């Protein structure tokens, strides 16, 4: 079979925008977008708050430079400053292009795109469509892909990424409807498979499939991962389900209130209050709860997010979705009562190490979006910068791949590579296997939540690593009970668990190694930021024995010098 020019794995915001850009750059390219879910099901749909861009529609004195600074400061100075600059410089262009292509936006009085305040931003620059910006952007991207005739392979599961050590060869995938495993040769591969915060399972806001499949496949293929220990806990997840209540609720003026009725953020972020960066707000809630100023319930301890003072009209107009979530999942109407919330594992800053074109060390292999680490978010991501990242780097990687793919001649994917996956999958069905998927998955989530959560210590992390390794060992004995080839969801879940375990190890090891607190990584035993020793990125590799090895690489600096990070 003739190789594809570009195979994009993942049909979320990053994957689809990359496909569009690639086709625009060269309409003759043979491109396929492979996704384990139908495109509009992708987790981009759940992003609520908005996409940042210094359009200066709301605050006329907003500038790209201010956005760059906010991003770098928000990252606790771990972001590569050149990458952050590219992110913010391209922001007005990509947001306006999406608008031009039909993405609906809420509007200002003068008809321009509406912008609202968001965490860690000096100016109001978060462009939004009510509280469903991710959903509307994703729908618009899908519509445009249909318009351009993008070829989708929906419900195909990524099994492995293939390369010859120098350049890409393609991917091995499974058709989820038939169980058939095939090699898809390609000159280049763009991984856009999303993040891994779902490994925290019960304590995560993510979709069930945010299991880091592409990142784990890259790790197994010998590619480097970066900054895996940085997992963002979003401050306001619903108490019972962990589902997300958008930062937009605080952007519109919501208060965080403890059991004394105080807006406690005045202690931790006197200037920005509820709109401090997410890591800061999550830590603050955690401290308040630990010091007895939280609320108790069977579903655990929580804080109040009070929107009552905003009034019914504003809530119904600007925050209808979060109102519905509170009603559906907590039985609380924010018009009348405060919403019970607690921090939830929401976003993963870590991912596949790529340069500013989204390119990895292997020619023709790219990574885009939450599965990548450029790094634009460093140790902590600002709200509104994730949707921005998928658009900017989706476009850059799509363009770069389109320009370079024709000059690459991939080697063939060996039958052995395909056989490897076939045999692995067959083995899961053996009757003598005894471990249960659900049990292992829940235990993984529990140990991560307890030992690699918001506040980490050497002791807890070591315990965490031990328990993860044990789960990794027990996984070798996990059984897939469903023996059918047709849409075997039991199998897909086990494969996803395999990926979560592999990445959980990197998170815990990275967290143990990094003896400082920076951004979303907080060490109770190393409570300050240590620029002298730790102003660098963590790098992870998997060797041939399947062991994780750690190294580091420097942060690219620019015009912003290291400073203390206060809000």
């Amino acid at each position, binding site marked *: 079979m003739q190789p594809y020019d570009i195979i994009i794995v993942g049909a979320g915001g990053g994957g689809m925008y990359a496909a569009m850009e690639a086709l625009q750059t060269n309409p003759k390219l043979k491109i396929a977008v492979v996704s384990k*879910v*139908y495109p*509009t*099901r*992708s*987790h981009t*749909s*759940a992003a609520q708050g908005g996409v940042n861009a210094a*359009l200066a529609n709301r605050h006329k004195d907003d500038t790209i430079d201010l956005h760059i600074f906010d991003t770098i400061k928000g990252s606790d100075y771990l972001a590569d400053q050149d990458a952050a600059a590219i992110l913010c410089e391209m922001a*007005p*262009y*990509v*947001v*306006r*292009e999406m*608008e*031009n*292509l*039909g993405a*609906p*936006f*809420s*509007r200002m009085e*003068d*008809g*321009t*795109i509406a912008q609202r305040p968001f965490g860690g931003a000096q100016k109001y620059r978060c462009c939004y469509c*009510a509280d*469903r910006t991710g*959903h509307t952007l994703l*729908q*618009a991207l899908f*519509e*445009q892909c*249909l*318009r351009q005739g993008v070829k989708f392979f*929906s419900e195909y599961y990524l099994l492995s990424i293939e390369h010859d050590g120098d350049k890409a060869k393609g991917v091995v995938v499974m058709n989820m409807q038939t169980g058939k495993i095939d090699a898809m040769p390609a000159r280049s591969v763009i991984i856009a498979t999303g993040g891994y915060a779902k490994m925290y399972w019960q304590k995560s*806001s993510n*979709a*069930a*499939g945010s299991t880091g499949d592409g990142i784990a496949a890259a790790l197994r293929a010998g590619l480097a991962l970066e900054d895996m220990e940085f997992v963002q806990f979003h401050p306001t997840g619903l108490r019972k*389900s962990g*589902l997300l209540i958008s930062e937009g609720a605080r952007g519109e003026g919501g208060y965080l209130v403890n059991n004394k009725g105080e807006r406690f953020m005045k202690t931790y972020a006197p200037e920005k209050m509820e709109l401090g960066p997410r890591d800061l707000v999550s830590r603050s809630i955690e401290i308040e709860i630990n010091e007895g100023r939280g609320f108790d319930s*069977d579903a655990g301890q929580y804080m109040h997010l009070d929107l009552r003072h905003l009034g019914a009209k504003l809530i119904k107009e600007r925050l209808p*979705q979060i109102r519905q*979530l509170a009603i*559906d*999942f907590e*039985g609380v109407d924010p018009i009348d009562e405060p919403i019970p919330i607690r921090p939830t594992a929401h976003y993963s800053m870590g991912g596949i190490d790529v340069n500013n074109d989204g390119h990895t060390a292997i020619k023709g292999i790219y990574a885009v979006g939450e599965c990548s680490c450029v790094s634009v978010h460093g140790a902590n991501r600002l709200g509104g910068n994730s949707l921005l990242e998928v658009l900017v780097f989706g476009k850059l990687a799509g363009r770069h791949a389109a320009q370079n793919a024709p000059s690459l001649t991939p080697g063939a994917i060996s039958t052995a590579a395909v056989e490897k996956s076939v045999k692995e999958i067959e083995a899961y069905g053996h009757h003598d296997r005894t471990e249960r*998927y659900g049990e292992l998955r829940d235990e993984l989530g529990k140990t991560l939540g307890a030992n690699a959560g918001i506040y980490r210590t050497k002791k807890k992390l070591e315990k965490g690593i031990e328990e993860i390794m044990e789960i990794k060992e027990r996984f070798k004995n996990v059984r*897939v*009970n*469903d023996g*059918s*080839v*047709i*849409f*075997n*969801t*039991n199998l897909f879940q086990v494969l996803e668990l395999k990926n979560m375990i592999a990445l959980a190890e990197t998170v815990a090891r990275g967290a143990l190694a990094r003896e400082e607190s920076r951004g979303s990584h907080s060490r109770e035993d190393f409570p300050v930021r240590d620029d002298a020793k730790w102003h660098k990125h963590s790098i992870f590799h998997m060797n041939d024995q399947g062991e994780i090895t750690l190294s580091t690489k420097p942060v690219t600096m620019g015009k912003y010098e290291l400073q203390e990070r206060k809000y």
Partner: protein
Amino acid sequence: MDEKKDIYFKIFRFNPEADTKPFYDDFKISVEKGVTILRAINYIKDHVDSTLSYRFYCQAGICGSCSMRINGVSKLACTTQVWDELPNCKEVDVITIEPMNNFEIIRDMVVEYTPVISKLEKYISWVTPRIKQEDLGKKEHLIPEAEFKVYDAATDCILCGACYSECSMMTSSREYISPLALLKAFRMVKDSRDTRSQDRMKVLNEDHGMWDCTHCYRCVQACVKNIPIMDAIQGVRNEAFLRGMKNSEGYRHAYAFTQDIKSTGRLKESTIAVRTKGIFGSVSMLPFALKMMSRNRMPHFFVKTIPGIKYVKKIFQKLK
């Protein structure tokens, strides 16, 4: 402590690899109040039968993956509370779970979704802006809030397919456009940034298109996002009127109503068929006409004009 009780789940099963025909499996689990249908079936899958097959993803009512029929009604499993379904059970405490209607079944609750995408493609469900490729990204269109409000609700659609599953015409013909494609079409037609509405209206005007909706409102009743889908369907038909697209039976049928109300206030039932279908088209109505005549039910050709008709005419003069 939240209430807890034993709930039975009667779940549709069919695996073409192993089964010759579908059957129902019964499961009994202890469920706490506040648990959703999705969490309940996840529990069954984790602890009782891992072969139970269904789609789910975000668990938060935004991705649209987990639509299925719960006690006979198409809904999202992740936003439906088990407790809320108890009054709807045919047998006490037995909740029925089935795949969506009007779709081919792949396995259990997993249905073949590609027809939805084909329909979106057929009806040009995207914006084609007049901005040239090289000028994209420079400036946003200036859209007044009033325009956005027209299709705001329509952009809520998560393509879950509940309306498709509930649609009466869909059960009669899989070729029918479907409520969700009509909703997208409305959203596109009302977006001033798009330049292909003429083409789109043309396809909507053809067979199995916008005129085939039988106004049963099942889509509106089922929509998981409470989108007034019928307003959108009426909206695209209204668009046909605004554009003077007279060459369809649907147009002529509706037009006949307005003419009758304007002229006499009441319908001239005897000629509606002819005015809708034309002389040749009405030949097929002959058996019906004969049946009516045999029962002495043929309506009068001359319809009495209502008193006050001049005021009715004023309405048609003053409003468009």
